[in-house]
């Protein structure tokens, strides 16, 4: 059985950056296992630009970003890539891989899961109506269009204002489809402000806030949808139904960390992120198993995925070379407007950048961080759910803390 110091599962943006981080910090035998035939993951179908402003100080397309990041590690003989290979089981530190060469097994000292996320499908929200063709998640439509060159619809309606949906509104318009509108059940958009501007407003595509799709209709192909308004408790308002003719409904209703392997391993899951609970080293509840990138929590920008994953790579290298950090773990507690926080718990050893999201729009507000020994109010203007918040706490500040650390938003 081949032995590695570190095996990284997933060769997308997170996996590449994690490999770099681990290499930079002294690991000599790293294997990246990728399901697809090339590195880059979902970046390879994101042919729009907007990637890399923070990392490379320029706006790149998804494939260019992947290429540029991969170039940082491509000559390193310490990092091997195995393509067209799917991890089907992790048993202790033995990884079973199914690929065209056979069923292979590898032994490793540490594992980083960098498996990305998946889109929430229609079935998960119990979308009512017919089972006709024409209903796709935005990412699937993106793959058909950008990798195979086909449009899945000519008259398109989009449910959910997630970024992929917005990007696809623009892409499909440019490729000859008519995008009729976007419905968002919340009273605010779930996409980045720049995408609302560049993908909807610039193309005169209406955004229906506080609206959702009640049902879909069509015996063979989608013929129309019924749009319905919701009240401030997100309850459907009877009588507000509108029939909208379309041959395609795209869904951009949320991304879920890809956590199949983590669940099978029995790693402790945070019900808020639906992903692993990790410490400030990105280590899960199982020693030597690390999680980063969109399989830990869904990020706004690939740059943040890379940044986080490089740190996870460093932490994994540290673990392999120096052993487990046995110091006490401090718990983070969230309330009043904070929907989740990563890491969920941490050691008192270094500066830590905490990442979290809020559950609604706050115009003028404070992020309140408090506990025994700490009470800090950080003023922030315009906190929105679609933008991840980051707070860096210094080692000196954290060292004063006794017991748990609390996070809330004060309006």
């Amino acid at each position, binding site marked *: 059985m081949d032995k590695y110091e570190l095996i990284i599962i997933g060769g997308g943006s997170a996996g590449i950056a994690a490999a770099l981080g681990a290499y930079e910090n002294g690991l000599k035998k790293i294997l990246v296992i990728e399901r697809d035939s090339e590195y880059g993951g979902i970046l390879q179908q994101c042919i729009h630009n907007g990637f890399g402003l923070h990392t490379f100080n320029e706006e790149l397309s998804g494939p260019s970003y992947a290429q540029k990041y991969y170039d940082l590690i491509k000559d390193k003989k310490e990092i091997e890539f195995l393509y067209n290979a799917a991890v089907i089981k992790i048993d202790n530190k033995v990884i*079973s891989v*199914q690929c*065209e060469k056979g069923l292979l097994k590898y032994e490793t000292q540490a594992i980083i899961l960098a498996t990305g996320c998946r889109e929430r499908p*229609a079935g998960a929200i119990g979308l009512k109506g017919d*089972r006709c063709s024409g209903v796709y998640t935005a990412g*699937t439509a993106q793959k058909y269009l950008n990798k195979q060159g*086909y449009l899945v619809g000519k008259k398109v309606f989009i449910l959910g204002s997630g970024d992929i949906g917005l990007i696809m509104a623009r892409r499909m318009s440019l490729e000859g489809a008519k995008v009729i509108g976007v419905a968002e059940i919340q009273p605010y958009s779930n996409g980045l402000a720049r995408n609302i501007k560049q993908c909807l407003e610039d193309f005169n595509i209406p955004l229906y806030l506080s609206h959702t799709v009640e049902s879909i209709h069509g015996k063979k192909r989608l013929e129309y949808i019924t749009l319905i308004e919701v009240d401030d408790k997100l309850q459907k308002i009877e009588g507000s139904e509108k029939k909208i003719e379309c*041959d395609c409904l795209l869904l951009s209703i949320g991304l879920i960390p890809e956590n199949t392997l983590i669940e099978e391993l029995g790693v402790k899951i945070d019900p808020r992120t639906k992903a692993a609970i990790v410490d400030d080293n990105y280590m899960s509840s199982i020693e030597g198993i690390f999680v980063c990138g969109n399989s830990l929590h869904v990020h706004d920008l690939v740059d943040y995925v890379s940044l986080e994953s490089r740190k996870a790579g460093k932490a994994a290298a540290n673990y392999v070379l120096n052993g487990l950090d046995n110091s006490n773990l401090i718990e983070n507690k969230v309330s009043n407007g904070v929907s989740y926080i990563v890491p969920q718990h941490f050691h008192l050893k270094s500066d830590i950048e905490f990442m979290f999201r809020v559950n609604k729009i706050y115009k003028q507000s404070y992020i309140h961080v408090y506990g025994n020994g700490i009470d800090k109010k950080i003023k922030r203007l315009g906190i929105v759910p679609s933008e991840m918040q980051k707070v860096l706490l210094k080692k000196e500040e954290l060292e004063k803390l006794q017991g748990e650390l609390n996070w809330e938003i004060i309006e």
Partner: protein
Amino acid sequence: MYDITIIGAGITGSLIAYYLSEYDFNVLVLEKENDVANGATGANSAMVHSGHDPKPGTLKCKYNLLGNAMYPKLCEDLKVSYKAIGAFVAATSLEEEKKLDELVKQCIDRNVPYELLSGDEAKKLEPNLADDVSKVLSLPSTGIVTPWEVTIAALEEAMLNGVNLKLNYEVKSIEKKDDCFLINDEIKTKIIINCAGVHCDDITNLLRVSPYKTEARKGEYFVLDHLNDTFVSRVIYPVPTIKGKGVLAVPTIHGNVLLGPNSDYIEDKDDASTNKGLDFIKKEINKTVKNIPFNKMIHTFAGLRPHIDLNDFYIQEDDEIKNFIHVAGIESPGISAAPAIAKDVVEKKILNKFDYKKKDNYVHREAFIKMDEISDEKKDELIKNNPDFGKIICRCEKISKGQIIDVINRKCGATTIKGVKLRCRPGMGRCQGGFCEPEVLKILAQQLNKDVSEIELNVKDSKVLLAKAKEDL
């Protein structure tokens, strides 16, 4: 001239074809849809009832009992999955407990194995039973199957043994001639077996005024994802009422859980859309189970029960038209009863009409390749012989390219995205095909020698891709 023509390739029609294929008959199966098992067979509770429930003296009762006994051997012969996981009927009041006693009497009369458990005893075995459950009738002979897998396998084996299948073939006219029937002015057949499900009366009406009226009763279901912690390990029934068996929790062969069904009479016999029934199910299911992981819901669907106004199966040769055989009203417990119905129809209604002999070169089908059921060593060997088995296409259900190619290139093979999904599961998992559908579509196009733009999702004219990029600019 065909000896026998079966109209409808659901589970009953397909099993009739399967049993007929042992003999030297010339058999044709006609199906109006583009795949088999597309009606009631494709959307139901996917289980084999023990036979405790149907009214005494009915055909439903008779065939359910016989069918339950046949399933283990049938599934072994067809090389498809069957698991006798048992069932609990959960009572939550004194009144319901009394009803359990009536069911016990029926079990005794019918030789159905049973055990009565206290609420506490039952909760030790099924920790997610609702707190109110006070008494339970345990029915260990209850089983689960994948009904479309049985259907597809039965028809595949039938076709390997000479049975013909015409898909996309709607029967629009039937004429009775002296010694045969003429279907759509082109197909001659000595015998017709009407297995047309919700359309049984429409088919009969082509020849005479149908002695029964078929209605569609819609049942909606939720599907839960595979769970790490078992939610239920048996079928959980509420105590039955006049309205029927109620809302069940049913583990499936592949580790999912079905919650449903409701029952709604509908006008349009082809309307399998989901509706408000799901709200009803959410409410009702709480009666028998708790801690329901609704956040693990990945799919919803509706099935149409072919109900006839005679309130029982209607299985007989027509009283006016010789050689026209009705197999109608096969609603619940239709899946459970199907093998027994099929065998009975063949043995009692067909064989006596012919001088026949059994085939001496009967061929058995090969099992679908299920990589999750074989050892690592076997897997490795399989991949080394054919690398396509190493290439995972469906990440959620871990289905390889080799498996998909296999189910396309068989008799009764898959021609649509849904056809592939029914046969080997890509798209059945938590992403519901989001990642693998474009890959499955490419493989279908390659294997069927079609352009990707021709591939359909499920029914006729349900194409996936509508235009090439920039085509309409």
